[in-house]
């Protein structure tokens, strides 16, 4: 193998963290700075599982866990040794402009506001709600207007899975459906309305922030780090009584948060110089620790106990086990 530079692909959510580590790694050590591509979690795993060799990436980032089908695909290409490294959490926030009242919603209300079909009187009907107080009289009488990521985004996947599915389960009827027909349940819970109340604002979260400032009635969906950076202009909504703060997400109290991972091809670890050192840098206390430099970029760290375990497994290239 001729390559002397680590190649990383994968999730756009993990991208800011992976790049920060890559840069620090390049500065600290004598190795070349790794090249990090932002391809999305699914796209990254596809490239990752394509094979072993120079032209295939060494590491892929993911904002969700690797799927069983992907592990099988990897195995078919001869990649049997994969090391999973969990790096931390990311919260998904529903935020609005500082000039308006803060949002306070339950997951059920989020589902009712954004689902394509909602159960009313025991029947699934097309979402009739136009204003927030149609859903619950205690909510303000403003038009439902939510700016969020398009279906290609990992943020959208996680939002749908955590918030919408969570909200859907609050209905007895849908809960029963989940038991009898999981596929049908998912079709209902994962379908976002297309009548203009949910506005797909593209992958650019900065754009959503600007639109929120211009329109105080609108609510935006994006990653926690954007809220963190723009706290003077926008505020995070309270979901199920919990505010999206660093502490709440870290403790697992905030309902819409997900784990971030990266996967390493163990077969490359001896071939491409620096992979082991890169893993060590990523899992050092300086980086993903409680006060590490990644927290400045908006990463929410794992608990100390979990960090130690992740570090040990990662640096010894322990093989991935899927439960």
């Amino acid at each position, binding site marked *: 193998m001729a390559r002397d530079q680590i190649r990383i692909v994968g999730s756009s959510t993990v991208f*800011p963290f*992976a790049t920060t580590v890559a*840069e620090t790694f390049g500065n600290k050590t004598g190795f070349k*700075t790794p090249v990090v*591509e932002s391809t999305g979690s699914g796209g990254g795993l596809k490239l990752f599982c394509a094979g072993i060799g120079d032209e295939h990436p060494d590491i892929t980032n993911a904002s969700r866990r690797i799927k069983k089908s992907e592990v099988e695909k990897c195995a078919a290409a001869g990649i049997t040794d994969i090391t999973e490294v969990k790096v931390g959490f990311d919260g998904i926030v529903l935020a609005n402009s500082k000039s308006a009242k803060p949002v306070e919603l339950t997951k059920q209300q989020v589902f009712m506001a954004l689902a394509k079909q909602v159960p009313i009187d025991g029947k699934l009907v097309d979402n009739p709600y136009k204003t927030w107080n149609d859903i619950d009289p205690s909510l303000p009488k403003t038009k439902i207007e939510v700016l969020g990521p398009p279906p290609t985004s990992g943020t959208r996947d996680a939002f749908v899975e955590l918030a919408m599915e969570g909200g859907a389960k609050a209905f007895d009827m849908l809960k029963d459906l989940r038991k009898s027909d999981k596929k049908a349940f998912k079709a209902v819970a994962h379908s976002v309305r297309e009548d203009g109340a949910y506005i797909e604002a593209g992958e650019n979260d*900065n754009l959503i922030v600007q639109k929120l400032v211009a329109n105080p009635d609108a609510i935006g969906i994006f990653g926690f780090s954007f809220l963190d950076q723009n*706290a003077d202009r926008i505020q995070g909504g309270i979901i199920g009584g919990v505010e999206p703060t660093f502490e709440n997400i870290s403790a697992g109290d905030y309902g819409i948060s997900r784990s971030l991972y990266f996967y390493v091809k163990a077969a490359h670890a001896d071939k491409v110089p620096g992979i082991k050192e890169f893993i060590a840098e990523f899992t050092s206390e300086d980086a993903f620790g409680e006060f590490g430099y990644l927290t400045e970029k908006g990463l929410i760290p794992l608990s100390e106990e979990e960090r130690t375990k992740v570090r040990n497994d990662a640096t010894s290239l322990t093989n991935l086990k899927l439960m």
Partner: protein
Amino acid sequence: MTDTSTPGKKTDWASPQLLAKVAQRQRAEKRFRRLGLSAIVIALAMLATLLFSIAGKGYSAFYQTRLVMDVTFSEAVIDPKGTRNEDDLRAAGYGGIVRDTLRETFPDVKSRKDLRELFALVSKGAPMQLRDMVLDNPDLIGQTVPVDFIAGDDIDMFNKGFIPRDVPEGDRRVKDMEIAWFDQLDAVGAVKMVFNSTFFTSGDSREPELAGIWGAISGSFYTLIVTFLISFPIGVMSAIYLEEFAPQNKFTDLIEVNINNLAAVPSIVFGLLGLALFLNVAHLPRSAPLVGGLTLALMTLPTIIIASRAAIRAVPDSIREAALGLGASKQQTAFHHVLPLSMPGILTGTIIGLSQALGETAPLLMIGMVAFIVDIPGGFTDAATVLPVQIFLWADSPERAFVEKTSGAILVLLGFLIFMNALAVLLRKKFERRW
């Protein structure tokens, strides 16, 4: 108006009906002129708005905040053995010197948490800054000299006025404590604004104050060289063949339709073609300017062929006939007479095609050039990115300080585009022949 030509029957040009008709025609003309003018005014106003908003957001990227503090380059830390060996100097603990400097400047700060905030006043690149100073001039060791530290991005944003003082502390990224430190430095004149040379000399970085566009400019340069070397000869040769040599038949017509069609194909399609052809079949390296240039060459080819054919067609037949009449072969006619005469038009078309390629991101997405790359590419096979991709990556970054960097990079890209298009106009003006 046959009346006018009939002799004896004079038209009364001053009759009220005719005068009314004249007035009506003049009104219609005035209306059209006004509409035309307003169309141009609207277009210019749009352009001005765009330029002003970008320039207004972007100009601040060209200067940056520096904090001046006295640094003691202690020999005990940098070079305890006193060898002045370059490797030792490179590996020394400059981070410690930066921290000591800050501690000495603000002796009241004690708690660990406050110290962390204090250390964030200066950029993460500060140790590298000191290292480069020492490597440039090892005589600094043992001296105490004032150093212009690059400020951290939050402090830079605060100093430029993007983070207001008057919002509650909890909503600000710069806390009261940091503002107090900043004011303390400001009071003794230790806060400076200087030209941001880092922006033009370094590669990408996750720290906005250290990020630069040189890596992207080099990447664009290598990519365009490949694009030019591939698409120009092939494009011009195809155009000459099609115009001068190809027989006029259905097959040639089919080729012509296809070339025109290719010029309108969305650029992402060329990216997919590049991925299939250059990466999957030819196994060229990912993210390399070589592959990017080849892909963009595919995209630029139709533009060049169409422009070149138009330029060749504009050469009058009398030239060809004269050359043939004097005994020149068809090939000699094409290369000695037609091609030189059509060159200005061909070059204009090529430059316009290349400036299109310079602004393209979509096809590069597929071949891995949308990537975070710190090292500045030094050749055609090094991993690289290009200017528009750099703009896209920065626009998508959460850090507030990247907003001005994004606009700054757009200004640079616009500068290059204006330069290239002006060159095209100039070439045409200078060498164009009229028959």
